[in-house]
């Protein structure tokens, strides 16, 4: 469980460059949750998630990871960072080894594991990240953009973290690379029932596709927090803070406003197609 209690964060506190990024954040993220954090640049979403593996500590309030308060000076932050894996934006820029295998092995090797255990970890990480056996002996630089990024994620997964935080894992990928990334996240969630997965995204459509919980950030505060259905029901509010609801949610809103009887919770093409078919079916039946 990841818990934020009245978390505030100020960059360069006490200097003329002081800048507040977070105000009074209260969140509880239960084990096994797949959550998306969405918001535009400057909304505080990256600052927020960096608290979850103690990369930064709150300047106000507390962050508690599995019962351990990261603001407590006695807390061993190495253990927190092992429990919570953080994948930065463009993590592929940090690949440096000669082969994908060695890159993934780098983390586990620092944990003092023996060779067989490291090998096992590498294969596990690669499999979870959707890489194939043949990728392992290649240079990271021979992989496609999406594969490189998944190789970087494999390195984090090889540490067997209890929670995985990804900062904009689909940024800059083409549609195919993006879909591969999203299906890795989805599968990871399905196969690891207790793992918390939190990913940052700009895209409502991709969030609508996989996240169970959506946390919308705006100007350093949690603006909306709920299921995808609950969040997308606020199309107007989302637009006000510079985010667009999925096209299907907007279309459903327009149809409802025109008096058509559509169910709530429409934000994917499948849902909208089903609703329209039903309306037409009802029409001919009448």
């Amino acid at each position, binding site marked *: 469980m990841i818990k934020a209690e009245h978390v505030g964060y100020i960059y360069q506190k006490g200097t003329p460059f002081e800048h507040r990024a977070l105000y009074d954040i209260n969140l509880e993220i239960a084990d096994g949750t797949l959550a998306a954090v969405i918001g*535009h*640049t400057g909304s505080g979403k990256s600052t927020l998630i960096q608290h979850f593996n103690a990369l930064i500590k709150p300047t106000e309030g507390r962050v508690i990871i599995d019962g351990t308060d990261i603001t407590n000076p006695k807390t061993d932050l190495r253990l927190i960072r092992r429990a919570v894996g953080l994948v930065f934006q463009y993590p592929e820029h940090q690949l440096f080894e000669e082969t994908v295998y060695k890159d993934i092995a780098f983390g586990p090797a620092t944990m003092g594991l023996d060779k067989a255990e490291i090998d096992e970890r590498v294969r596990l990480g690669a499999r979870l990240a959707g890489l194939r056996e043949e990728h392992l002996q290649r240079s990271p630089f021979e992989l496609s953009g999406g594969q490189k990024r998944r190789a970087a994620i494999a390195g984090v997964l090889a540490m067997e973290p209890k929670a995985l935080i990804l900062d904009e894992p689909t940024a800059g990928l*083409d549609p195919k690379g993006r879909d591969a990334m999203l299906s890795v996240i989805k599968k990871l969630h399905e196969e690891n029932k207790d793992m918390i997965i939190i990913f940052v995204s700009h895209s409502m459509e991709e969030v609508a596709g996989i996240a169970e919980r959506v946390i919308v950030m705006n100007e350093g505060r949690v603006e909306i927090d709920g299921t995808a259905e609950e969040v997308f029901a606020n199309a107007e509010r989302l637009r006000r803070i*510079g985010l667009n609801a999925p096209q*299907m949610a907007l*279309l459903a809103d327009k*149809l409802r406003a*025109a008096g058509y009887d559509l169910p709530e919770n429409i934000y994917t093409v499948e849902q*909208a197609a089903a609703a329209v*078919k039903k309306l037409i079916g009802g029409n001919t039946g009448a």
Partner: protein
Amino acid sequence: MIETKNLSHSYRAGSAEQEKKVLKGLNLKIEKGSFTAVLGRNGSGKSTLAKHFNAMLLPTGGKVYINGMDTLDEKSVFDIRRTAGMVFQNPDNQMVAAIVEDEVAFAPENLGVEPKEIRSRVRECLETVNMTKYAETAPSKLSGGQKQRVAIAAVLAMKPEILILDEPTAMLDPMGRSEVIKTVKKLNKEQGITVVLITHYMEEAAAADRVVVMDGGSIALDGTPKQVFSNVEMIKALGLDVPQVTLLAYELNKAGIDIAADVLTVDECFTELAGLLGGNGK
């Protein structure tokens, strides 16, 4: 005008290493004043194509003409680069100056333009991209979208006829993306600048007059956004997205419901559905 005649390009052509054919005999004409989006997934050859439009890359087969000038003719390279300006993906890699106005003045200074004329161009170009306020700001203090608009202003200061943008929004957030696309559209409509926009975002391609879809070094589709995106199955097979509303129309058509297949916006789709559902709504 840009014209390619049977354009081919191979990386490592003629070297000992294995040759890689990236463009395979392209014939393309881009008219003056048009706004063309080149859409394709990574590795489709779209960036390689774009780099031929200002002679950054030269054909290994066939020809490219910019306003009739052959890019293989060394004497024309200078004029070609002045005619066709290029903006790249990562704004941080193209900034050279300490403050925004110096960045925009950099190219005209190199061209030996009169100082007075430089000042007026800088002012004008910053105004065009709506960055006047930031004339004396350091580029590092700007957001990604602002940086890209400065990069566009820096190209405009050379008064190019053609603007080529190679995935200018790939590293930007949705707000930055829409700022850049709005700026580009304005330049095309108000100043008549020919725009070639390389992208893998279908929303951006939908804003163009024409969409050229690249796949495996060849042109897979070429037409208006409506013509191109109504080929839902093909677009998906090419690893690209279609707008959600277009996909909805496609799904409904498959179910035997008669709705125009080429809707691109929520409003168009609503109008179609309202027409179809008739008096059902009250």
